[in-house]
């Protein structure tokens, strides 16, 4: 990963080891992400260590998984919105297309239950999912290119909802089964193919017959070693796979951004007329970038929901999902890939999963009965009882908090955590005179 182009001030020796670490972290993108992750791990461990090792490792896995999938989605959205200024609030729809296409391509034509599929291998399904999402992106972008930002947004939202309602429709499911012998499962959704990571650890994915890798991992960390549950270890295996994909996304998007292609995107975002007057085919560029972004959203959908065992259109692909991903992009700072990664991790851990966990831990410390409703809680006039109610019903309060955070950011810090960094879009270093730097490439 590339470094910031920080101007070298007089080098100050840090006061302590901690200072040195923070310094290094700030100057390196990777460091920043790892530092944030580390802090989150620390907080999570403190929160649950009393429940045992499995609890801690399990929570860390969940937080990392969510952080990674939100980071992947945020990176894809950032390409549309942060780089090119395309206000796409149909992300959930494109993710649904990706994962559903994969499901329909990979599922057996003669399943025990659920809708039939084409029975093709998983890699084919993944490529098909990305291609289909990209195609839908083309269909969405073509007519809507010339629209104002907010009208374009509403069109994408409409498309996303039409996609969800279609996948939910049993009439559509039936029609599809009759014509193409594949189905969506309607409102009940469909089961996802087995996670291939599982068969890295267990022969044929069957519990009780570990592979060589499985033996090693289970032996060291599982029953034979630290005592962590096997499923949690397999879950961590998948997290590692996700991290690899994240690196792939990041490198891809950095390369796209730091190039003439990325320059064109920035120009379009800021002033289409200038790009047009300089000879850039703005419509074509918008279509291309929209298709690329949608393909990535499809892949993110596959990696996220395809690994969860079952997908269904509602509530998984409601518009609120898109808005969560927007919050992640905004928190991190739109226009910066590192910002999207950071935003995804911070959003997932601090805004999405965190408050729930904190709430339930707090609840355990309160020695009182939970009043059954808000009205009951208020009428008791007892702060402890009210607190018990609040912590037991932390879920809605969490979303109130999320809303407030979003409003606060838009009021005071719309640029997000990393927003005041505006990265130059070029494949070579533009920070100094050509002669001085000898024309080095940035990677």
């Amino acid at each position, binding site marked *: 990963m590339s470094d910031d182009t920080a101007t070298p001030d007089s080098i100050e020796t840090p006061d302590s080891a901690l200072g040195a670490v923070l310094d290094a972290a700030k100057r390196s993108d990777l460091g920043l992400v790892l530092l944030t992750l580390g802090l989150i791990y620390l907080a999570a461990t403190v929160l649950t260590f009393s429940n045992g090792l499995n609890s801690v490792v399990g929570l860390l896995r969940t937080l990392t998984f969510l952080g990674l999938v939100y980071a992947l989605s945020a990176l894809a959205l950032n390409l549309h919105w942060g780089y090119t200024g395309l*206000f796409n609030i149909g992300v959930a729809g494109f993710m649904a297309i990706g994962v559903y296409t994969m499901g329909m391509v990979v599922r057996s034509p003669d399943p025990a239950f659920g809708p039939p599929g084409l029975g093709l291998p998983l890699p084919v399904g993944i490529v098909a999912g990305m291609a289909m999402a990209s195609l839908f992106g083309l269909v969405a972008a073509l*007519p*809507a290119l010339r*629209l*104002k*930002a*907010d*009208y374009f*947004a*509403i*069109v994408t*939202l*409409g*498309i996303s*909802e*039409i996609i969800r*309602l*279609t996948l*939910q*429709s*049993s*009439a*559509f499911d039936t029609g599809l089964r009759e014509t193409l012998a594949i189905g969506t499962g309607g409102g009940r959704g469909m089961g996802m193919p087995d996670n291939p990571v599982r068969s890295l650890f267990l022969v044929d994915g069957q519990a009780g017959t570990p592979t060589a890798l499985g033996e090693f991992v289970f032996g060291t960390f599982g029953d034979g070693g630290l005592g962590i549950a096997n499923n949690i270890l397999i879950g961590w295996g998948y997290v590692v796979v996700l991290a690899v994909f994240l690196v792939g996304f990041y490198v891809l998007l950095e390369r796209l951004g730091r190039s003439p292609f990325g320059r064109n995107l920035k120009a379009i975002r800021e002033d289409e007329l200038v790009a047009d007057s300089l000879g850039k085919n703005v419509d074509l560029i918008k279509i291309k970038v929209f298709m690329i972004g949608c393909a990535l959203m499809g892949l993110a959908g596959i990696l996220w929901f395809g690994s969860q065992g079952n997908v269904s259109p509602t509530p998984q692909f409601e518009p609120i999902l898109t*808005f969560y991903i*927007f919050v992640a992009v*905004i928190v991190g700072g739109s226009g910066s890939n590192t910002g999207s990664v950071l935003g995804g991790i911070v959003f997932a851990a601090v805004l999405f999963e965190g408050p729930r966990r904190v709430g339930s831990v707090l609840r355990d410390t309160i020695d009182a009965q939970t009043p*059954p*409703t*808000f*009205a*009951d809680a208020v*009428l008791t006039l007892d702060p402890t009882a009210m607190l018990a109610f609040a912590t037991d*019903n932390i879920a*809605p*309060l*969490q*979303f*109130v908090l*999320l*809303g*407030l*955070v*979003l*409003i606060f950011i*838009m*009021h005071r810090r*719309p640029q997000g955590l990393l927003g005041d960094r505006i990265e130059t879009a070029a494949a070579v270093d533009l920070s100094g005179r050509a002669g001085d730097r000898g024309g080095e490439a940035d990677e």
Partner: protein
Amino acid sequence: MFRERPGLAVVTLVGLLLCVDLLAKLAGLGVGPLGGSLSVSRLGSNLWNGLVIGLVIGLAGIGLSMTYSILNFANFSHGDLVSTGAFAGWGVAFVIAAAGQAPLRALATVRGASDTTPGEIGAHVLSTPLAILLGLVAAFCLTAAIALALDRAFYKPMRDRGSIALLIASVGVALVVRYLIQFVYGASRRGVTASVDGDTLIGPLGISATVHQITIAVAAIGLMLAMHYMLQRTKLGTAMRAMADNKDLALITGIPAERVVTATWILGGGLAGASGYLYVLLRGTIQFDFGWTLLLLIFAAVILGGIGSIYGAIAGGVIIGIVFTTSTVWISSDFNSAAAFAVMILVLLLRPEGLFGGVSTA
């Protein structure tokens, strides 16, 4: 005109085909893929139901259309104002209708106190008309106040920001309102109307209409007429129309912008609340996020009618409502909403100014 705008030509062609098909169906004729059978009473019911729900959506759309044109942003928290009105209004209606029959706190939170209420408590215009009426008034007033408060707290500090920033902030406000409602009132869906014998009338052509539907239609039209009177006959109304029409020009002529903005929130918010109340009266059930679910339909109505046009919002609402209910003649009811969204998208692509947009006076 059609040669220049092929999209419009296609849509008109499809529209004509649908009309021909409809007539064929009514007549019981079959002409290849067209035609079939459709009873007049069924079509009539669809149209009536569509009209009623359309009036409610249109009522909600007025506020959305006004904030869009006067404050220049798409307010994604508008749906949750609709929910607010429903809960506030129905709480009052219940308290009045069933005071003494159940604990006050259960009534005020619309039976949010789950298992402390014995039996069914419901209100009905035939059995407890005062409760229904006062509930409507409460829905309007309380939501107006809340809408104004939300503006002062969250949108006013952002007056000078771009429309996208305000849109995103409104998503945040939507979350705050919606989940406060869930926190206070609970997440479950519950019934609100009592069932009363003889509440369904059979009208002409065999169309059935419930008393509640008629009440809603009357109330909605009444509110729209009141709005119309206010817009056409009062100074404030004229100022609002001017600002909705051409903001810069209006400001130059010395119209008190902040006063108009306040009026926009009060009236728009109040109507949103009233529409939420009426919607729940129509459906008979209430749940914390129904307004959010309704939001895109309301947007569809506003866009179809033309942003900034209040009469457009009403017309758009009625059309969307009819599309919603009558699309079942051709496609599965799974696609009710999808049909309405498709209409919205087509409008944005082919005629973004809507039916009445670009035409002056409200």
